């Protein structure tokens, strides 16, 4: 296949553009979207590229329709994606739950802007973290990835598709206006060097009878996509292994929802991804994700220069969440700092993970600007003094 952008070399591009190119290289053949700042550039790149690579990009009438269309396309067999920002992401919540309940692989990109409501459309924030994890109603699990650089936006988009296909689940690429609009050099690999995952399809008619049955013992049923003659039945109602609605049977509901949660929870090790800097001998740890992690790395170096043994745990996946790992970190340091571009969201998960083994302090910042390294240093030093 000929790609409408350079492959096998590096390019200097925006985060949004990198996400679009990565989606195409990940095998995305269907994109549906609705214009919104700061995610529109993803849509515009998809509109430009998709027809050239035998794919489709369509503009729907709203974000409710965008996510609905990609779920439909996924059942038609396509790898499908949509991208939006806060207001549109809020509109997508109901159908995100539908995708979870029907175990439909999709990728949803949320280029976070500052909210609530229309907020600061052009400015970055990390205010949608809890919404990405818990925004849709009911018990559930899903996967949330948090890139900090344009290269990570590219790499994690490919990973988002692979995880969605592997676990038959929606995956959220949770980025922000800074990463989305920033231009950086990105290495775009040769397509043949990119490892791609495709959803498990039923091996035969018999397997296709159980679109929601754990027939392989791995908690992930093969997906009998439409148009193959299986006459698959898919519903957001509580359903049995064959997909038939069973709405008042507590046992069937428990079995279904627990399997949907467990297929993510029990594969945490495979899904979770993080990086550590200078954490081995650290007295204080910074736990960070997304754009703020870049300031946090710098802050660690500055703190070390000033005699504070700091280290960084940079989370590339914020859900599923590794509470046990946070506890292990908490056992080795006396304090954990969580700088976030919000008034405290992931902080609560870190605090739960630390389990009282270390003090956990939030370094909040809102208004659209990323924490400077100096601000993180100052906040850490102020707290360290008060002990």
């Amino acid at each position, binding site marked *: 296949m000929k790609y409408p952008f350079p492959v096998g070399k590096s390019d200097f591009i925006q985060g949004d553009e990198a996400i679009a190119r990565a989606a195409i290289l990940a095998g995305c053949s269907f994109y549906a979207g609705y214009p919104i700042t700061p995610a529109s550039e993803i849509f515009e790149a998809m509109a430009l590229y998709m027809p050239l690579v035998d794919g489709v990009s369509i503009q729907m009438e709203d974000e409710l329709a965008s996510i609905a269309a990609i779920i439909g396309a996924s059942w038609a067999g396509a790898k499908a994606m949509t991208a939006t920002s806060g207001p549109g992401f809020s509109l997508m919540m109901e*159908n995100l739950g539908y995708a979870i309940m029907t175990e439909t692989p999709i990728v949803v990109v949320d280029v976070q802007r500052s909210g609530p409501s229309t907020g600061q459309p052009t400015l970055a924030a990390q205010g949608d973290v809890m919404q990405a994890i818990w925004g849709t109603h009911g018990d559930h699990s899903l996967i949330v990835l948090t890139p900090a650089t344009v290269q990570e936006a590219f790499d994690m988009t490919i990973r988002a598709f692979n995880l969605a296909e592997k676990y038959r689940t929606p995956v959220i690429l949770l980025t922000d206006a800074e990463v989305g609009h920033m231009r950086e050099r990105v290495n775009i690999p040769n397509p043949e060097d990119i490892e791609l995952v495709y959803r498990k399809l039923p091996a035969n008619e018999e397997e296709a009878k159980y679109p929601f049955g754990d027939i392989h013992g791995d908690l992930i049923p093969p997906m009998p996509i439409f148009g193959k*003659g299986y006459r698959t039945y898919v519903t957001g109602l509580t359903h049995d292994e064959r997909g038939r609605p069973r709405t008042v049977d507590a046992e069937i509901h428990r079995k279904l929802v627990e399997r949907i949660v467990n297929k993510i929870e029990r594969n945490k090790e495979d899904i979770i991804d993080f990086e550590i800097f200078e954490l081995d001998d650290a007295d204080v740890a910074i736990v960070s994700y997304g754009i703020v992690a870049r300031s946090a790395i710098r802050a660690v170096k500055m703190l070390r220069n000033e005699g504070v043994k700091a280290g960084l745990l940079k989370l590339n996946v914020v859900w599923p969440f590794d509470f046990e790992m946070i506890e292990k970190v908490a056992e080795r340091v006396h304090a954990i700092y969580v700088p976030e571009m919000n008034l405290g969201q992931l902080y609560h998960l870190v605090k739960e993970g630390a389990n009282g083994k270390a003090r956990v302090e939030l370094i909040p910042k809102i208004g659209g600007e990323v924490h400077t390294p100096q601000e993180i240093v100052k906040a850490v030093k102020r707290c360290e003094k008060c002990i």
Partner: protein
Amino acid sequence: MAEKTKYKMARYLRKEALPTALCPGCGGGTVLNAFANAIDQLKLDPRDLVVVSGIGCSAWIASPYFLADTLHTTHGRAIAFATGVKVGLPDKKVVVISGDGDLAGIGGNHLIHAARRNIDITVILVNNFIYGMTGGQVAPTTPFGARTTTTPYRNIEHPLNIAEVIAEAGASYVARWTTAHVYQLIESMKKALQVKGFSLVEAISQCPVQFGRRNKMKEPAEMLRWFLKNSIPISKAKNMSREELEGKFVIGEFVNRQRPEFTEELNKLIEELTGQSGPGDENAD
């Protein structure tokens, strides 16, 4: 048991899902029967069909009872889901069967825009003037003056003329019949399934339990008589004023025309740009 059921259309149904959840006297069974007959008369293989529905009584007409690939979706969004299915599987017939509240109330925007796009989806909109499943609340189709549980005194809003709006929005085919016009309903469903482009068949249907009971028509037959008495063929309606048509049901074909169809245009564009075939092609994955 099996010996007793000689219903010919049973082969199109998921037997394990029967009997249906529809109330006695509901018009939904008539619509399902008409749809199965349309499929049968066209000799369509249900394997080449994807049925998409939303939420509410009418969403249950074909789902889970009709034996085809089926996506039973969220409230109001069936057409948006169907858009993704159709683009992914352009060679399959994609049919949305759902109600007036679902498709023209909460989902009205998707209905209008799918018609504007003229995407090759067939929508069978079952209009029973009421939110039945939730207990008989007013709908955007409820007649002026009617009683419902949320307009307990009388409805002071005017109903939406769905067929007219969708014909105007750009659909290739639009027809309206009632459950008292079964043969015409089947013929229109057949045309809708065959036409290239967006097609809408509005089937006015009786809900004696939630609508009729509160509006002096608690027997299904009374409602059917009401439909027959107030139905005006579109040819005659053209010469009548809005005032004269108040409270009447205009029946017949509103539009039947050829317009460029969305998935064809999409694939034409892809072919122009790549010289290849479009999505849904077996080689595409």
